[in-house]
């Protein structure tokens, strides 16, 4: 809430219009909020990337510590969240770039492109992890 300026009266206690929880969520509302949440999540994800690069630069012993965490189920979960966020934010970012040049604003189009982004996020994320596990299997041999 913005602070009231000195001397101003407190806001009148009028009935408020129905707020977030009462509306059916349109597709575009969900995609917009998720874009922001994943963006903030990815900001913290940069710390993971820095850790990976630093561990690799410092040598085998340090890298073993990174591996022990990233191979743990919780580390895996965090990495999965990072992947989903990155894929979603990138794909939904393409929608924003189309809007920036004035395209795709029709409600039906915006809803459809949002659903397509949801679908593609699942497909691409699963493909990445299948590929990652296949690579790991190949390294292990």
């Amino acid at each position: 809430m913005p602070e009231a300026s000195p001397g101003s009266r407190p806001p009148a206690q009028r009935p408020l219009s129905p707020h977030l929880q009462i509306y059916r969520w349109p597709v575009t509302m969900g995609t917009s909020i998720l874009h922001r949440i994943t963006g903030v999540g990815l900001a913290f994800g940069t710390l993971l990337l820095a850790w990976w690069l630093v561990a690799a630069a410092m040598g085998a012993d340090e890298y073993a510590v990174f591996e022990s965490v990233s191979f743990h189920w919780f580390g895996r979960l965090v990495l999965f969240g990072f992947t989903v966020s990155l894929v979603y934010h990138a794909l939904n970012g393409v929608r924003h770039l189309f809007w920036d040049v004035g395209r795709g604003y029709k409600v039906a189009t915006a809803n459809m492109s949002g659903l397509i982004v949801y679908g593609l996020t699942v497909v691409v994320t699963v493909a990445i992890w299948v590929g990652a596990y296949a690579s790991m299997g190949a390294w292990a041999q």
Partner: protein
Amino acid sequence: MSVQTPLSRARGLGSAKSGVEHFWHQRLTAVALLPLTAWFVWAVARYAGAPHDQVVTFLGNPFNAAAMLLFVLAGLYHMALGIQVVIEDYIHREGTKLALLLLTNFAAFAVGTICFVAVLRIAV
């Protein structure tokens, strides 16, 4: 007392404190990040679970090191611009807002420099 005309003041520092640079740089980095992210996702899927010597060999390649640093550079700049908007949207107490904006920018530079030193140490 300013001797600027209202027009020059509006062109320089309006109430928004900037022009379209923020918007444009956000989009510039967004477009740059599309191919870089595709490469990064591939690289991480392939090498994040690889043995240490394979990771070092991969990042030792100048092209891979360059792609990684471009991703870090564009990504952190995009991050700083985006987080700035989030902070400005939700934090209205001036001191807290200023502190968080400083933290965001310092963190971006710190993480970026650490990534650069790490990659260059492997690749150079």
